């Protein structure tokens, strides 16, 4: 009769090697890695009951689990990073834009300096590049975030 506990204990080195391969592929977040390992252990255990050959059961379970690089790529799709990136970028750009406008409008009053009227030659020289830079930052960030979000929404094939 197969001693399942001992058979699983004999495979600990193989499990450690598999974990290392997953980490090397970039699956570093504890939750997916732990979940995958729990699945792998359950699969190996189930097949050990029938075959009795630990190494064979382990190799077959690793094959069924899939290649680490492919798994990493699919986990990236489910990360929602595109959506977060878009908000972070919008926050930075929006903050910069508001700050520029505040300095533009309130600054001259606070510091009792000559106020630059909108669209005068001085305004163009002093402020226009800042407005353009912040708006460009928002637009580029939004485009990158949207592209990433669309990529993440692609159907994942289990």
């Amino acid at each position, binding site marked *: 009769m197969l001693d399942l506990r001992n058979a699983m204990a004999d495979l600990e080195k193989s499990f450690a090697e598999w974990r290392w391969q997953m980490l090397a592929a970039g699956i570093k977040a504890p939750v*997916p890695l732990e979940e995958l390992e*729990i699945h792998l252990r359950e699969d190996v255990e189930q097949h050990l009951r029938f075959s009795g050959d630990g190494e064979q059961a382990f190799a077959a379970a690793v094959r069924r689990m899939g290649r680490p690089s492919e798994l990493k790529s699919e986990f990236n799709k489910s990360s929602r990073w595109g959506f977060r990136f878009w908000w972070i970028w919008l926050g930075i750009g929006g903050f910069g834009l508001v700050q520029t406008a505040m300095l533009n409008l309130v600054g001259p009053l606070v510091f009792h300096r000559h106020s630059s009227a909108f669209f005068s030659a001085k305004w163009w020289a002093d402020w226009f590049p800042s407005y353009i830079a912040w708006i460009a930052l928002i637009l580029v960030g939004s485009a990158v975030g949207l592209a990433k979000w669309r990529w993440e929404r692609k159907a994942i094939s289990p």
Partner: protein
Amino acid sequence: MIRKELVAASAEPVILSLLAKGESYGYAIIQEVTARSEGELHWTDGMLYPVLHRMEHRGLIKSRWGESETGRKRKYYSLMKDGKTAMTKHQQQWSLVNSVLTGLRKENYA
């Protein structure tokens, strides 16, 4: 064996329909899909988890850590309200596709 594109498209409705019966976990979901499709719907085990995580991010399902009968740690997934709505929509759409194909097949063999 069913084509990869169809496997990808059917993953969400299949998972939602399975979870509608009650909470489950990754390994059991894979086993049930394999048994019900007699091995024709082939899922790569590890690829199930990114799908589950994305469905969880979208608020269709939720998860909780629990324990198996043998004391092993397990992550259980269950259906949320938005998941039930999504499942109903999926089932209507797949039924429509099925009825169109069935109708055409009957005409072809009539």
